[in-house]
């Protein structure tokens, strides 16, 4: 056949009906990926983030399954004092040694990690709820309502948070203890300890402002878009617009901000426990273990090493995961 492109001779191949598969390809160029598929693909390509996820899962297993495994295999619990094993260095029997009361340190570090992780998660959950709703309401309302709400946030933002946490922990300790002992409903909380409750209260009071600012910024952008106008035209209430449209559309940055809150909450808790607030004995958190270890740091430095390493590991892993999530969920935020 003549290959001359200028030839008028027609190729009969071109006039055959299109096969079925090709027709599908013409309609959709390629299968569409959803937001989540897209994000998870980006996240999976990020090695550091994947390693962080593995580390976080390992730490969770260490903290939540570890104590049960230890109890089943060795019989040690975090409060059991073994007379004959006081002040042991790390050995095959006690991998991380024992403390001055003969308690196995490994179980205590496991339980401490559990408390620290729980503090991080619960505090972040509180921040998530308050910050998201506050920010969304301020952003959607706009005008003078927004102005007043944001002025309030500005004031809270400039309050030195650590000082207020300390103040609240000191002052709430006694009233909370009394409340736990008397109240029937609140009795379940007594195990948590007043120190931790006051940390949660402080988070609920102060730490949501960052989240609120971020969500407000998102909402200000989103609320001008057509689908919000359409929803409003269809008669959707403010409540519905916030819960069904505004928050789901800013879920990426919300998740990223929340991920960064977890390590900062763990940071604050360990700081407080270290200076003697926070959890009360015989409970342990990573900060209080480090604080206890300070007393014998010259003779038993390893007691300090293990909880400190785990804190650093948790914070590092969550920070890296946060970075990875930011790149995956919100590519525009990438620096």
């Amino acid at each position, binding site marked *: 056949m003549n290959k001359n492109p200028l030839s008028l001779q027609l190729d009969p191949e071109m006039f055959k009906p299109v096969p079925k598969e090709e027709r599908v390809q013409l309609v959709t160029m390629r299968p569409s990926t959803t937001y989540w598929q897209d994000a998870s693909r980006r996240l999976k390509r990020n090695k550091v983030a994947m390693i962080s996820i593995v580390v976080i899962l390992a730490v969770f297993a260490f903290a939540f399954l570890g104590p049960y495994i230890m109890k089943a295999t060795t019989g040690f619990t975090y409060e059991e004092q073994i007379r004959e094993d006081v002040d042991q260095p790390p050995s095959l029997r006690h991998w991380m040694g024992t403390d001055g009361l003969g308690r196995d340190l490994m179980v205590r570090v496991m339980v401490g990690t559990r408390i620290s992780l729980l503090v991080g998660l619960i505090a972040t959950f509180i921040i998530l709820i308050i910050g998201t709703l506050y920010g969304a309401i301020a952003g959607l309302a706009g005008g003078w309502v927004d102005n007043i709400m944001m002025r309030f946030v500005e004031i809270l933002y400039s309050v030195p948070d650590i000082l207020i946490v300390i103040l*609240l922990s000191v002052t709430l300790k006694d009233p909370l203890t009394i409340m736990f002992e008397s109240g029937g409903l609140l009795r379940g909380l007594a195990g948590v300890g007043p120190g931790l409750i006051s940390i949660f209260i402080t988070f609920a009071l102060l730490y949501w402002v960052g989240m609120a600012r971020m969500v407000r910024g998102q909402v200000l952008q989103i609320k001008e878009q057509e689908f919000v106008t359409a929803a409003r035209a269809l008669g959707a209430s403010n409540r519905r617009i916030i819960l069904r449209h505004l928050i789901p559309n800013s879920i990426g940055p919300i998740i990223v901000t929340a991920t960064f809150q977890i390590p900062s909450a763990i940071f604050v808790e360990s700081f407080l426990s270290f200076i003697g607030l926070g959890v009360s004995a015989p409970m342990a958190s990573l900060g209080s273990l480090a604080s206890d270890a300070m007393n014998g740091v010259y003779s038993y430095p390893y007691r300090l090493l293990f909880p400190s390493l785990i804190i650093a590991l948790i914070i590092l892993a969550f920070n890296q995961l946060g970075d990875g999530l930011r790149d995956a969920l919100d590519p525009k935020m990438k620096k």
Partner: protein
Amino acid sequence: MWKFTFRRLVSAVVTIFLIASLTFLLMNIIPGSPFNSEKGLPPQIIEALKAKYGLDKPLFEQYVTYMKNVAKFDFGPTIKYKGRTVNEIIRDKFPISAKVGALSLGLALAIGIPLGSLAALNHEKIGDRLIMLFTTFGIAVPGFVIGTLLLITFGVIFPILPTFGLDSWKNYIMPSIALSLYPTCYITRLTRSSMLDVISQDYIRTAKAKGLNKFIVIGKHALKNSILPVVTYVGPLTAYVLTGGFVVEKIFTIPGLGKFFIDSINARDYPMIMGTTIFLASFIIIMNFVVDVLYPLIDPRIKIR
């Protein structure tokens, strides 16, 4: 300009006022009084003590008196250290904490800014990678961990540095390093990302095209604009070194305000806790105010609302 300064000032004063009120309120919802711990005191003496500290008056009257005193920066007598006032302790001990804090702040700026610039100039090269790796770890390690690691390493295993007190300049080395590690890493990252922004701008290309020396381009033209975000961080940084100082002072047994504050927490010395909280909070808020007001002067591109 004046309107902006005035608004900031009002906001700062309101914040301090709210903190002082909150402190007072919290201290007064605590059941019992600070004298309960001294068992066996006859009720008359407790009454007399209460009268001495003004605790027998109605709550609102106490509040008004208290706020009046706070306005004069008079925090009254302490309970734990008999015969001394909170003001005296703050006057004696704050300079010590401030010295360690200022040293750490200076260290963080002096290391963080050059390190960040260095990373930006070697963007994506080995130097940048190493610096970023270092800061990634530095940010994840809490101050008390690095403090105690230093203590074990240079105080116990290789005893070359003193581990407590503040007798010579050597005593300042470990506390300042422990306190400045986190801000150093933070400032490094801040400087790096803003330096990356700045060096891709047109005026830097112009400066290079003029044939200026690389050091002048970076040191004179790029650095000036890239340290602006660092200036805004000085306020939070002050808060960090002052509150982080509590932990560092505990680890290295430094007799600063932070150590006294923690002791007063454990002893339930309420006037001391209230006084120190309000004092430190005011200090931090005033620092933030100064930075806020100075910022538009440093960076004329910022429009004042």
